[in-house]
C-alpha cells in the first residue's frame, strides 16, 4: 500500500511540474494554445464525470452549461462592464442554477429518459443563443470580450492578455478545482454517488436522499462547465453558438469515456489525448470520428474504466509480480 501511494505521489508531482514548465519549453505558440484547450477540456470532462462517472447519469447538456457560463459572463463584462473576476463566478453560478432547475423534474427519471431530456435541453439552449439576437447577436456571436483584469500583488502586476498568461491562469484554476474535486469524491458525497450508481434503492435505505445527491452532482458539474465557459470567453475573446453544440457534448463524453469514467485521472488523460488528436489530425477529420465512435464502443465494453483503469490494473499487476519475485 505504502509503495503504491509513493508511486502515485511521484506521478502527481511530475505531472504538475511538467504542466508548469510546459509553456517555457520552447514549443511554438500553437502548442501552448493546444495546452490551454486541453486544460479547458479537462475541466469540462471533470464536470461530466461527476454526473456520469460517479452518479451514473449520462448528461448530453454539458456543452449547454459551458455556453451558459460563457454567454452570461461575457454579457456581464460587455454590457455592464463588470470585471472578469466577478463575472466568471456568476457565469458558473448561472449554469449551476439552471442545472438545478432542469434536474429537479428530470433527475428522478431513469437512464434514457434523463439522457433525452438533457439532449433536448442542450438543443433548446443552442436555439436561444442563435435566435435571441437582441442579446446574443445570434449567429454573429459576441466579439471583443475583454481579457481578465490585471491583478496587482504589490510588487508585481499579473496580466492575462497573452496565451502563456492565460495558460497559467487556467492551470491555477484547474489545480484548485482538482484539490476540491478530490475532497468531494473522497468524502461521503462521493461515496453516496457511487452507491447510487450501484443500487439506488439500497442507497435510499442507507438514509441517503438520492434526489438531493443527484442534483448536487448535476449542479456542481454544470457550475464547473459554466466556469470553464467564462475562462474560455476570457481567453478566446469571442464566442458564438457554434462552439456549444451537441457535438461538443459528445466530444466531452468521448474524452471522459476513453480516459476513464469514475476516476479523477481519467478525464485528465482523456482530455489531453483527444484534444491533441483533435487539433493535430484536422486533416483526417472524417476518419477521426469513425475511429472515436468505434473506440468508444470498444472501451465501454472491454475497459469500462478507460485508460486510467487500465493503468491502475497494470501497476497493481506489476506490484503483485514484484511481491512474488
Amino acid at each position: 500500500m505504502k509503495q503504491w501511494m509513493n508511486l502515485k505521489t511521484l506521478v502527481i508531482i511530475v505531472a504538475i511540474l511538467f504542466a508548469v514548465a510546459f509553456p517555457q519549453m520552447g514549443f511554438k505558440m500553437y502548442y501552448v494554445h493546444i495546452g490551454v484547450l486541453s486544460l479547458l477540456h479537462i475541466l469540462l470532462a471533470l464536470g461530466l464525470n461527476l454526473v456520469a462517472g460517479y452518479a451514473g447519469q449520462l448528461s448530453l447538456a454539458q456543452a449547454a452549461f459551458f455556453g451558459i457560463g460563457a454567454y452570461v459572463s461575457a454579457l456581464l463584462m460587455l454590457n455592464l462592464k463588470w470585471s472578469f473576476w466577478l463575472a466568471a463566478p456568476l457565469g458558473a453560478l448561472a449554469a449551476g442554477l439552471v442545472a438545478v432547475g432542469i434536474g429537479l423534474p428530470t433527475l428522478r427519471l431513469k437512464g434514457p429518459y434523463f439522457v433525452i431530456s438533457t439532449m433536448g435541453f442542450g438543443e433548446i439552449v443552442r436555439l436561444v443563443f442563435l435566435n435571441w439576437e437582441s442579446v446574443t447577436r445570434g449567429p454573429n456571436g459576441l466579439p471583443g470580450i475583454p481579457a481578465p483584469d490585471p491583478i496587482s500583488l504589490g510588487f508585481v502586476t499579473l496580466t492575462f492578455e497573452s496565451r502563456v498568461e492565460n495558460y497559467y491562469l487556467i492551470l491555477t484554476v484547474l489545480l484548485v478545482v482538482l484539490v476540491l474535486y478530490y475532497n468531494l469524491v473522497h468524502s461521503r458525497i462521493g461515496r453516496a454517488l457511487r452507491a447510487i450508481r450501484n443500487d439506488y434503492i439500497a442507497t435510499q435505505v442507507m438514509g441517503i436522499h438520492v434526489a438531493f445527491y443527484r442534483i448536487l452532482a448535476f449542479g456542481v458539474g454544470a457550475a464547473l462547465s459554466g466556469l470553464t465557459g467564462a475562462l474560455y470567453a476570457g481567453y478566446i475573446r469571442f464566442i458564438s453558438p457554434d462552439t456549444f453544440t451537441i457535438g461538443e457534448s459528445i466530444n466531452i463524453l468521448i474524452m471522459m469515456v476513453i480516459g476513464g469514467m469514475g476516476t479523477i485521472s481519467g478525464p485528465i488523460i482523456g482530455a489531453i489525448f483527444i484534444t491533441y488528436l483533435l487539433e493535430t489530425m484536422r486533416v483526417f477529420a472524417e476518419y477521426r470520428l469513425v475511429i472515436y465512435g468505434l473506440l468508444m464502443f470498444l472501451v465501454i465494453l472491454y475497459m469500462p474504466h478507460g485508460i486510467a483503469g487500465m493503468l491502475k490494473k497494470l501497476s497493481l499487476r506489476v506490484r503483485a509480480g514484484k511481491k512474488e519475485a
Partner: protein
Amino acid sequence: MFQEFVQQIVNGLVLGSTYALIALGLTMIYGILGIVNWAHSELYMLGAFVGVFLVVHLKLPFLLGLVLAMLVMALFGMAMDLLVFRPLRSAPEMNMIIGTLGISIFLVQAAVIVFSPNPVRFPTEFSDAYLSFMGISITLQRLMVFCVTLVLIALLNYIIKYTTVGKAMRACEQNRDAAKLMGIDINRISLITCAIGAALAAAAGTLVGPIFLVSPQMGLAAISKVFAVVILGGMGNVPGAIWAAFILGLAESLTAGFISSYYKDVVTFCILITVLIIKPAGLFGRSQIEKV
C-alpha cells in the same frame, strides 16, 4: 386557411408515420432485449441510402426497392444484434447508451466517407404524381408513406399477436428469465426482433427519403424525436409508441405551419418534459412498481 390546415395535417401524418416506424423497432428492442439502442435511427438513414441505390441507381420499381431495402437492413439488424447488442446485454444501462452512441457516430461518419456528406435527391415514379381533391393536392408519395405505414403496423400486429414467434417475443418482454426456462431460445428471438426493427426503420427511410433529402445526418436529426416518442408511449409499449408518434408528428407540423418552424423542435421537448413531470411512465405506460 382550411387548405393550409389540411396540408399541415398531411405533413403531420407523414412525420408521424416516420416516427412510428422508427420508434417501433426501438421500443421493441428495449422491451424484448432490454437494450437502449442509440444507433437505431442510423438504420433509418442507411435504409434510405440502400433505397436510393436500388431505386435510383439500379432503376428498380419503388415498391420492389422498398421491400428489398427492408430485407437488406433486416440482415444488417441481425449483424448489429450479434456484434453490438449481445456483448452489451449485461452492461449497465448507461454503458449501453454510451456504447450504442459510439456505434451511431461510427455509422454516421462511415456514411459520410462512403456517400459524401452532401444530401442526395431520391426521385421515384410517385414523386411527381399528384392527387387533387377540393383544391388540395397531395403527392402520391406522401399518401403512400401513410398507407404503407398502416399496412406494416397491421402486419406487425399480426406477427406479435398470432404467430408462435410473436408469442415468444411477448413472453420475453414479460420476463426474460422465465421465458428462457420455458425453453424459448432468447438468442433467436432477439435476432428476429432486431431484423424486424431494422426492416421497419429501413422502410421509414425509403418511404420518406423521396420527400425530404437523403443524407448521413438524417438519423441524428430524428433520434431525439424518436426517443421522445418511445418515452411518451412508455418504454417497450408498442401501441403506445404508435399513438405517441402521430401525436408528436401532428404537434410538430402544426407548430411549424402556424407558429414558427424555429419552435417545432422546442415543442416536442416541452411536451416531453411536461408529460414526464405529470406522468413519469409516459402517456401510455403502466406505472411499474419496482420489485425489491
